[in-house]
């Protein structure tokens, strides 16, 4: 009787130990499913799994459930909430501190974007996304752009402003730019329409801003009397409003139109027209 009692009790102790291990390993099953365990944890867990059907079953259920939940559809908020959120930036930011923290806020967010952008540039397939970020980073400072009565200028301005909201198209090929200047780098180029005629746009980074230059049809360039006169007198047409500059000049058989923040526009003596 004594012997038998002894055996039962040690068996009981073994069972308790096993139960404890079983209970603690249960909490690691998710990590096994998600490949989030350390190597030694995997070894311990696999040893336990070999002898524990409860845990094997649980693991199978977790795998299946996790897979299944991935397919849950996106729930969409109401249009009215979207509208409210569009206006949320009209609310004041952090109260009481007005000047300094605001500056820091812009700066830190900008640095954040810059970091993300760098990361994306080096990640595979990140180029299109990088373009979107470039726009966010470099075009954010454009003040409310002026509109113009000259159709080609209005077109160029509106395209430049639209690009602020969207991803820049990614170039099929980066062709040679019509005008170049020190510090100006071609980011992307695509076909567009200016003044009703086909044109090619070249998105350039100039310092920390984006400048668009367009190769436009010659007839479009000279269509407006104001532009014609300015080119005849000074060799180029310039218009500046609210920090945004528009510049138009003739090239060999076409016109060059540039739009960007004044501070980013190259000085005339820096500008090399490549197609003249």
């Amino acid at each position: 009787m004594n012997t038998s009692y002894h055996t039962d009790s040690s068996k009981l102790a073994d069972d308790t130990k096993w139960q404890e291990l079983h209970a603690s390993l249960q909490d690691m099953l998710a990590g096994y499913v998600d490949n989030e365990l350390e190597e030694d944890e995997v070894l311990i867990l696999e040893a336990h799994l070999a002898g524990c059907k409860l845990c094997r079953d649980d693991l199978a259920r977790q795998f299946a459930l996790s897979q299944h939940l991935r397919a849950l559809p996106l729930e969409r908020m109401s249009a009215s909430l979207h509208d409210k959120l569009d206006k949320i930036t009209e609310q004041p930011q952090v109260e009481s501190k007005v000047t300094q923290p605001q500056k820091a806020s812009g700066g830190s967010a900008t640095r954040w974007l810059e970091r993300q952008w760098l990361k994306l540039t080096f990640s595979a397939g990140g180029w299109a996304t990088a373009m979107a970020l470039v726009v966010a980073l470099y075009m954010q400072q454009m003040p409310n752009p002026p509109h113009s009565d000259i159709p080609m200028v209005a077109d160029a301005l509106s395209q430049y402003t639209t690009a602020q909201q969207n991803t820049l198209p990614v170039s099929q090929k980066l062709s040679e730019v019509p005008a170049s200047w020190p510090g100006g780098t071609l980011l992307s180029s695509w076909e567009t329409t200016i003044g009703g005629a086909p044109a090619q746009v070249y998105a350039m980074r100039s310092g920390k801003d984006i400048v668009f230059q367009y190769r436009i049809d010659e007839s479009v360039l000279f269509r407006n009397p104001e532009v014609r006169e300015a080119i005849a007198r000074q060799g180029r047409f310039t218009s500046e409003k609210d920090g945004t500059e528009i510049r138009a000049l003739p090239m060999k058989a076409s016109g060059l139109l540039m739009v960007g923040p004044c501070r980013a526009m190259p000085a005339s003596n820096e500008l090399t027209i490549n197609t003249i």
Partner: protein
Amino acid sequence: MGIKAELTPSSRVSNLYGVPMSNSGKQFQQLTTPWRDRLFSVAVRQADSRQKAEDWVQESMLKAWKHFSDLKESETVYAWLLKILHSVIVDDVRRESRRAKLAPVVCVEDEELQKHSSSSAGPFEEVLQQQNHDRISNAISALPCEFREVLLFRDVEGLSYQEISEILDIPKGTVMSRLSRARRMLSSALIKSSDHSSTHVRTESAGGFT
């Protein structure tokens, strides 16, 4: 690759740090707008109504805007928004429970889990197939909130344990154990609901399941 070199600070950098409000507003919208519906999805699965979820999201976005400068360089925007949403929900639930004197958050006992873990795995795939999205969403909503959150973040939103641990400010080990339990609870709830709704269907074809 040449682009990288171009990004090194130039003399123009100083211009960037004086970004006026309107521009930081634009930047905020550019960064957060793509995540609005995802954020709402997470909120609505934790709320008892869509209205509540919208209130949470609106409050979260307002908080995010007010504290836009807190967004760290290393942080992803979505994780940052989720963290804010989490704090909004926690505050709200705490406020509500104090007012309505609701029972404290359900504490899941190990015995309960043991019982659940013994449900066999065989028919489980079938159980999942029987559930439509609404029933699954309802079952998720019924989980105690700390379990529900990790499950949503991991299995629906696909975040890593590290990201979840940062959002909820809990150790990775806790993320793992909560997730293990959350999946177990959800599995058990789905098995129960499928038992209730299709008893006679199951008996007809019971042979195939055992």
